[in-house]
């Protein structure tokens, strides 16, 4: 008998030859730890979705869309509030670079992110108590000069960090550009008022009618506060430098809008109005002009066509629907009239893009055109009023001189928003000012705590390539459209033009999100693993774990991951502490798994730490 005297060691014994308990049972897989067959290891690693990357303040867009999809609206609102103090505002006014970056735009139509943001912002406005609380007081006082988007954002983040914040606002009402630069029919005043109230609820003091340089001096700021954030914006309109620009009936874009916004406007427009400029403010002015009683509004731009205008295509479209005319390739060379505007003298012009000379070249060799108007609104940009600022902190282009952390030299003064971003290449948009305010607040905090300022060096892996995701899982599905008032009725009223999503619409639209590169707990990996060797205590990003002792590296989960957050990492990339040949045929559970330590840490590393 050949088998006489044989014995099988305990560790190799199984209940019955060839038969084991099911793999899902507690001990089942211990018998067959097949992990050392693996040459590719699946790793959950969230990438940065392109929307988050494009957002001026890096809102966790994929994150809140996912929460909306699951009906967790308050959680979604809380997530958005980490980076954005007033989603109800940006949900209406933002130029949404996120939607331009949205991968879904390459597939069918981009997600209507702004509309979902507005849904959440309005939901937050309705909450009796905001989800955001002030930080534990740290005894330090900070002044924020200006209550526009950058000042609002900086004050908000500083209050959350525990600072005693005072906002100094030169206008009678807080809000800055949010109030003075954005018409009511885009952003109703009461929405902004509610967001300002939220600042007060955070313990922030708002002092209006306080102008730096007049009511407070540089020295006062330095003496009375531990630190200061200068977010004074660009308040002075640029002129077209044309003869007769000082005639009656000539208005400038931002003051025109601001006075209407503050309820202090005495402007009476005639029937024919020209708006000079091709940007977003010019568009707002043209549309506001209609609402202020103008009958014929013409927009005169130096750009040769509508595509070249530095404006949001949607806003341009809505303006044209309301009946504003466009005249391209013209510059105003003189304002004609006897004391009061009667006509404009126009010459052909083009935008040359020159940097050190005038970017606009005007052809004065041809006979001038005469364009009859009763009013003209000049909206070709703004500049800062910085007389109060010590010269050492002024730049040649009329902005505040800062280092890359937003700090003025080694002072405790910081600056944020348009007043530093003008000419930087960054579009002067609300969301970019908000992001600037947020980052400056965090930098200020680091300085206050005596920490050194480090530039951001976290590598950002943004998924732009749809091939990194499994598109099989995403059927084509059209974008949910926001309802709008009809052009014929809206052009005469201050009613909000674009209407809000219903809850159903917001959920439907959020459900279109690809969740590019980021786990959205779809459970697909858990279901397709043939072993199964994927475990999760519940469906949630970050809770999925690969049982590394058993995973054979078959790649099914990686291939079938809809979002591309699962990656196949060559096993040999993780050779720290690995003695592969020694363990290749080891049965003891965990021998191989222990090699995964480095990788486990990788999985827990926040991918979006920006």
């Amino acid at each position, binding site marked *: 008998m050949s*088998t006489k005297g044989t014995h099988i060691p305990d560790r*190799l014994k199984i209940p019955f*030859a060839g038969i084991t308990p*099911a793999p899902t049972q507690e001990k089942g897989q211990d018998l*067959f730890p097949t992990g050392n067959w693996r040459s590719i290891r699946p790793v959950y690693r969230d990438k940065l979705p392109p929307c988050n990357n494009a957002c001026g303040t890096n809102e966790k867009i994929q994150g809140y869309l996912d929460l909306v999809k699951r009906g967790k609206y308050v959680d979604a609102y809380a997530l958005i509030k980490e980076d954005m103090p007033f989603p109800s505002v940006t949900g209406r006014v933002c130029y949404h670079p996120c939607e331009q970056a949205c991968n879904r735009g390459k597939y069918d139509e981009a997600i209507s992110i702004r509309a979902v943001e507005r849904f959440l912002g309005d939901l937050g406005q309705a909450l009796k108590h905001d989800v955001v609380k002030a930080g534990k007081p740290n005894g330090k006082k900070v002044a924020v000069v200006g209550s526009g988007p950058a000042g609002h954002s900086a004050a908000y983040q500083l209050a959350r960090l525990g600072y005693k914040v005072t906002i100094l606002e030169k206008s009678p009402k807080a809000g800055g550009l949010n109030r003075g630069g954005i018409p009511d029919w885009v952003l109703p005043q009461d929405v902004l008022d509610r967001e300002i109230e939220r600042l007060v609820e955070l313990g922030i003091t708002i002092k209006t009618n306080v102008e730096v340089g007049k009511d407070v001096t540089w020295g006062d700021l330095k003496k009375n506060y531990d630190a200061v954030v200068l977010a004074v914006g660009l308040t002075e309109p640029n002129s077209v430098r044309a003869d007769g620009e000082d005639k009656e009936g000539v208005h400038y874009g931002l003051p025109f809008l601001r006075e209407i916004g503050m309820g202090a406007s005495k402007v009476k427009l005639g029937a024919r109005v020209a708006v000079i400029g091709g940007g977003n403010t010019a568009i707002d002015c043209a549309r506001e002009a209609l609402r202020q009683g103008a009958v014929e509004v013409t927009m005169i731009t130096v750009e040769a066509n509508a595509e070249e205008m530095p404006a949001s295509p949607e806003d341009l479209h809505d303006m044209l629907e309301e009946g504003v005319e466009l005249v391209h390739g013209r510059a105003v060379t003189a304002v004609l009239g006897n004391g009061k505007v009667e006509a404009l003298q126009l010459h052909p012009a083009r935008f040359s893009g020159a940097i050190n000379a005038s970017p606009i070249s005007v052809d004065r060799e041809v006979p001038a055109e005469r364009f009859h108007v009763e009013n003209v609104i000049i909206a070709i940009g703004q500049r800062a009023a910085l007389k109060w600022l010590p010269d050492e902190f002024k730049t040649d282009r009329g902005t505040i001189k800062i280092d890359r952390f937003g700090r003025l030299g080694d002072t405790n003064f910081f600056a944020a928003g348009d007043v530093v971003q003008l000419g930087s290449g960054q579009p002067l948009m609300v969301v970019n000012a908000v992001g600037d305010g947020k980052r400056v607040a965090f930098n200020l905090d680091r300085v206050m705590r005596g920490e050194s300022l480090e530039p951001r060096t976290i590598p950002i892996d943004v998924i732009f390539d749809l091939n990194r995701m499994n598109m099989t899982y995403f059927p084509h599905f059209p974008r949910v459209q926001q309802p709008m008032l009809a052009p014929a009725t809206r052009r005469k009223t201050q009613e909000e033009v674009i209407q809000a999503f219903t809850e159903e619409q917001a959920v439907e639209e959020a459900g279109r999100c690809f969740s590019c590169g980021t786990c959205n707990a779809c459970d697909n990996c858990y279901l397709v693993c043939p072993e199964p060797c994927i475990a999760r205590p519940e469906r949630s990003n970050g809770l999925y774990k690969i049982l590394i002792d058993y995973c054979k590296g078959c790649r099914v989960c990686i291939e079938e991951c809809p979002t591309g957050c699962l990656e196949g990492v060559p096993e040999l990339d993780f050779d720290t502490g690995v003695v592969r040949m020694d363990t290749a*045929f080891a049965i003891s559970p965990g021998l191989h798994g222990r090699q995964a330590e480095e990788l486990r840490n990788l999985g827990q590393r926040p991918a979006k730490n920006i």
Partner: protein
Amino acid sequence: MATVTAAKKRTVRINGCVASAQAAKYADVDVIAAYPIRPYTATMMALAQMVANGELDAEYIVADSEHSQLSIAHGASSSGARVFTGSSGVGVQFAYELYSPISGSRMPVQMMIADRTLDPPGDFGSEHTDALSTRDMGWLMGWACDAQEAFDNHLMAFRIGEDRRVLLPQMVCQDGFFVSHITSDVELPDSGQVKEFLPPYKHPYPLDPRHPVSHGPQIMPEQGPPLQLERARAMEDSMAVIEEVHDEFAKIFGRRYDPWVEEFMTDGADVVFFMQGGHAVTARFAIQHMREKGLKVGLVRLRTIRPYPTDRVKDVLSKFKVVGVIETNMGLGSPSSGGVLYADACAALYESDKRPLVVSFMAGMGGEAIVLKEFYWMTEKMLEAQKRGKIEKRTHWVGFEE
């Protein structure tokens, strides 16, 4: 589960194929996996009739090949069913992949073999090579020499293979044509006798969604040897079970078989034939004639080749001067350059103090009958070797030499 119609013991005149079908019916099989190939097809034809008539309540599955047939058998057995299947010749070969997995997962599938010569070219005749080529795959294996023995072997094989100490598949073999298609009297038992002998089949770990288990998972290399050792143990442990079952069978049915070898007229014999299967019936006649003429010749018929009864073969064959192995199989390039049985006989005898001379006869090849005069010729060769004290050559091709 099927219920066999209550039947009293009776004798019927049927061929080997139908005897096998009757055995499957008496064993109340749950699943029959069929795919036609001559000559075993007649068994499946008979079973199909039984199922159609309502005599047997079983799943009768017609596969699309022998490979599928054995896969079906494997799966059905894993679910806890008593499974009957079968094949012949190249059909046995086509299913080869499944033999080790079935025995490795310890599924007591029963397979009826009616031998057929392997190609080429097509040959319907019987030769044992088809089943013998799978003899080391972990299946219990033995040949019957007539329809009654085939019937009995089927019942005993179920009982042995399904024993918890064994749990191995069984090939129950009979010669094509000589047994499968020759009609003879077969005593069919009382169904109560079968009930007493063969309890309902119950696998200890069937596939059942209510009690999940894994069958045949991937394993680590170091987990392979213990599983092979377990399978080897089961094969060895089956020997005691085989003996027990034969005793039990004799008690209940009244027919006693030696589980390992049948000795026929070996008393005082100097030379013996060592063979398997249906040609033993002719051999018995030839030996009787030669004994009448005073030649000291006998027959040792091997009934079970797997597990191989090494000691028993050694003890039995050591009593004689010359052993003539009748192969009825092809072992091209084998130790004897003839069949494969020679090596098994010699291996058993190697440790014997009294080793007989061993000579191998290639006879019954291609399905040819081994006629009486060929037995006489082979006996002469053995007697010459006895006289000379050495063999003329290891292998003789019977019918092709003077």
